[in-house]
């Protein structure tokens, strides 16, 4: 049974990725998945100051997830919300899994994600953008990091729900996945599911993440080719 927008269960919405779009940042990217748009920017590694906040053994990584006031149906009040603070926390943990912070002692790495248009899947779009921004900043990473959410509509397992689809189901299972080491580094669930449901959705999510990985690699190549062609 095809979905309202004609997609198959395991099919993501159209994905567009672009690297290096914020000139001032050390690394940046824009990721659009369907109607959801995320920008990410990395500043650093740079000397941490004030000095008493430095960690002599490793870089201090901060992560800030935000929604633009105009990103969703009702205006979002600027400033951190409880939701955005929780997403910043789990996103930071997920990203830390691929960066060896010990390579950059005494420095700060600040990562910012802003959602300029929200149509479900904002935290996962943000993580995909962050992965590209970190790579674009030239930070040593053990893997790229990919992210998508899945769910169950009626009896069917589906990946990458739209805002409309989210309203018809009460479940949301986002993951962040390291495609090379095959590890799940972010995992959340809102819903009411059996273990079997979860296993099946995980499978779908991981398949989608493998596709996202290819798109990420391509976006980085485009940037590097673009850069080299300018030389």
């Amino acid at each position, binding site marked *: 049974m095809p979905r309202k927008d004609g997609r198959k269960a395991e099919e993501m919405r159209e994905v567009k990725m672009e690297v290096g779009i914020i000139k001032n940042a050390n690394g940046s990217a824009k990721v659009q998945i369907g109607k959801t748009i995320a920008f990410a920017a990395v500043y650093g590694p740079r000397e941490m100051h004030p000095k008493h906040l430095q960690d002599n053994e490793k870089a201090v990584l901060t992560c800030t997830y935000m929604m633009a006031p105009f990103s969703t149906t009702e205006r979002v009040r600027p400033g951190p919300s409880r939701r955005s603070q929780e997403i910043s926390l789990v996103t930071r943990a997920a990203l830390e*899994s691929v960066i060896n912070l010990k390579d950059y002692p005494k420095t700060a790495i600040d990562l910012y994600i802003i959602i300029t248009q929200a149509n479900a899947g904002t935290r996962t779009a943000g993580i995909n953008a962050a992965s590209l921004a970190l790579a674009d900043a030239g930070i040593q990473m053990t893997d790229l990091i990919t992210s998508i959410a899945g769910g169950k509509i009626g009896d069917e397992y589906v990946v990458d729900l739209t805002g409309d689809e989210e309203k018809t189901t009460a479940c949301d299972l986002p993951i962040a996945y390291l495609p090379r080491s095959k590890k799940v580094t972010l995992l959340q669930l809102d819903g009411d599911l059996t273990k079997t449901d979860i296993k099946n959705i995980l499978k779908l999510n991981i398949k989608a993440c493998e596709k996202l990985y290819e798109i990420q690699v391509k976006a980085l190549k485009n940037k590097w080719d673009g850069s080299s062609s300018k030389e």
Partner: protein
Amino acid sequence: MYINVQKRFIERLAKEQRRIDGRAFDEFRKIKIETDVVPQAEGSAMVTIGETQVMVGVKMDVGEPFPDTPDEGVLMSGAELHPMASPRFESGPPGPESIELARVVDRGIREAHAIDMKKLCIEEGEKIWMVMVDTHVINHQGNLIDATGLGAMAALLSAKMPKYEDGVVVFGEKTNKGLPVNHKVVPVTIARIGGHLMIDPSLEEEDVMDARITISTKDNGNITAMQKGLSAGLSVEEIEKAMEIAVKKGKELRKLF
């Protein structure tokens, strides 16, 4: 430095299937649940897990429904990790850790439809009951999520509706009527240390674990919330094993109510 020595020691123990306090990997510390510890509140509970202790209180009030759920009550959850409970906590507004604590517990209850929110509607679109669940941590020695989850459930189960007369809540007077609780939801938090999964991490274990996963289950064994913490990745097999553990231990925990 000290942490590193302790880390290696606890990891080495894990490889020998042992824990620093002698527990099995699937063994909780001693759990004690007391209810009505704040008799003036609509509901309350004190949960002790080893030396971790949290107090949860339920307050109720009448308010307006959200526009998109005009015939449903509202559940709100808060938690304060106050320096009173541990030298590790700082003063000030709730930080990300206490927000996560409250939200993870809240999601498990909410997604299970543990409370029949439609029964908390007084007048559609106008007046509904708000259920406010607040956690105050008394002493932090690890695994605050499970302690808070058990406390929230026990406090909700013990709660009595306040008197409501002529459109006004009579604060301080409770009726005999409990909250419409349909499901008992409990979180089980599993730590990974030295590649091994173990439940109910103590503070010393939390300091050395590299990944953490909390899984909330309801009476029929369904899973209603999951939250992975920390940065190390879990394999799909580990996630599946964690689900098995959480379903099994959840069943045992529900007997405590």
